């Protein structure tokens, strides 16, 4: 298995606030599906924003073996597909089509290629008949799936999802779980939904106060109730 994403000793503070990341290191190998859990404010979202260079702290981030610098940022963004927690943050175009096409269009791909990519991405999330709908009027569950399509259309090698199941009703949540299970892509998913973790991810990383406090087999981590409680988590 090749190492597709790794982070070495990453530190980051938001302006004059106390540090949000205090030395984070991790490695994802191809095909890994990893859960990232931890209490509110642990630094999960902050870490994710570093993975395609939206935030840039001290330390090193390697994407596809290459160190992330200002110059290869656009290329890294094509490799790491980042989906934000709130689909409303992800969807800024009037129609579903325009949103899913944004990435490929920005990459300067030829028109045919763009259309083909949009088609494939919408198929993957089973929303191809939503092409011309206005994203504004969709339900939360539908928006979540479109949000995933907007990065799938860029053919990323790694999918980074920030709390994909928040606010979904049980049916929509179930559909999302099935979708994630089927996507044959390396994945890092932050969530508060411990049952999702148990069901879907063989490996779990636990963050608290800007540090990784555990990284290992989901089964073992979820079994240690005392440890979970210490970090504001709960058994599923």
């Amino acid at each position: 298995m090749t190492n597709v994403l790794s982070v070495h000793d990453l530190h980051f503070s938001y302006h004059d606030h106390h540090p949000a990341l205090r030395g984070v290191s991790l490695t994802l190998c191809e095909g890994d599906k990893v859960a990232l859990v931890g209490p509110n404010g642990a630094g999960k979202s902050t870490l994710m924003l570093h993975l395609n260079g939206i935030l840039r702290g001290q330390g090193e981030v390697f994407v596809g073996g290459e160190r992330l610098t200002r110059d290869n940022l656009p290329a890294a963004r094509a490799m790491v597909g980042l989906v934000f927690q709130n689909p409303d943050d992800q969807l800024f175009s009037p129609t579903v089509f325009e949103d899913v096409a944004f990435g490929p269009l920005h990459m300067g791909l030829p028109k045919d290629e763009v259309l083909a990519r949009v088609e494939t991405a919408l198929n993957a999330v089973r929303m191809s008949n939503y092409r011309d709908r206005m994203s504004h009027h969709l339900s939360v569950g539908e928006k979540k799936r479109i949000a995933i399509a907007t990065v799938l259309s860029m053919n990323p090698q790694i999918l980074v999802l920030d709390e994909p199941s928040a606010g979904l009703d049980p049916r929509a949540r179930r559909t999302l779980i099935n979708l994630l299970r089927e996507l044959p892509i390396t994945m890092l998913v932050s969530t508060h939904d411990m049952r999702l973790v148990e069901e879907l991810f063989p490996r779990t990383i636990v963050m608290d106060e800007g540090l990784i406090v555990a990284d290992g087999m989901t089964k073992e981590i979820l079994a240690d109730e005392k440890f979970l409680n210490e970090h504001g988590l709960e058994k599923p």
Partner: protein
Amino acid sequence: MHSDAFDRYHESNSFVHRLDPRVKVIVTIAYILSNALLPDGAWLAFGLSWLFLLFANALSNLGVGFTFKRSFIALPFALVAITVLFSIPGNPISTFRFLFWDLTITDMGLLRFESILIRSWLSVQMAILLVATTRFPDIVHALEHLRVPTILTTIIAFLYRYLFVLVDEVFRLLRAREARSAAVAGVRAGGSVAWRGRVAGNMAGQLFLRSYERSDRVYNAMLARGYSGHLNTINPHEMRRVDYLTTALALIVILLFQLVGRL
């Protein structure tokens, strides 16, 4: 995410922090007005004004140099005033060649230029001190007391509250766009200017719609708590004797600057 960085208030319990917000608003405006009224080259009066500012800084427990550090916000604008260096008649000080023109700096021009910069620099510092020592909701209360129409102060209060929510929303939208602004080797990325403009416009439209619908929900929340078209508030501020005294003293001192400046 938060845009806390937007808040300019610095928590403390100093003399200046405890003053009624009206006092601070009035003194700030009087101070800025006084600077604007001082004639060009009233160095002594400008100096005294500056001491006044340092004193106010010290009284607010923020450190004598507090406002100084933040005072260069308005500096870029100074460049629009550069032309007065050359365009006001007076005795030439020095001449130099700038591309095609011989430019002559005159003494009167220099005087005007320096005076403009000093006025601006002092005024902006006082305004910085005002927001650093007064919570914004209190400034809005002060405006209410000072007879600014209620509808306007209410809009400002709402603006302030939702500023943070909506600016965060914009940051996240910008972030989403950035995250997908990718390129592949050998292909020119970015699209045309018009396309980029349209994407930005779509984001503005998106934001508009969400704000509009949010205002519906907020209105519902207000209705649910008894709103019926008129806003009632408890205004927690009362002018104490020290507030009156401080106002009077500060205004007298500021008047003195005018005297000194015009002697």
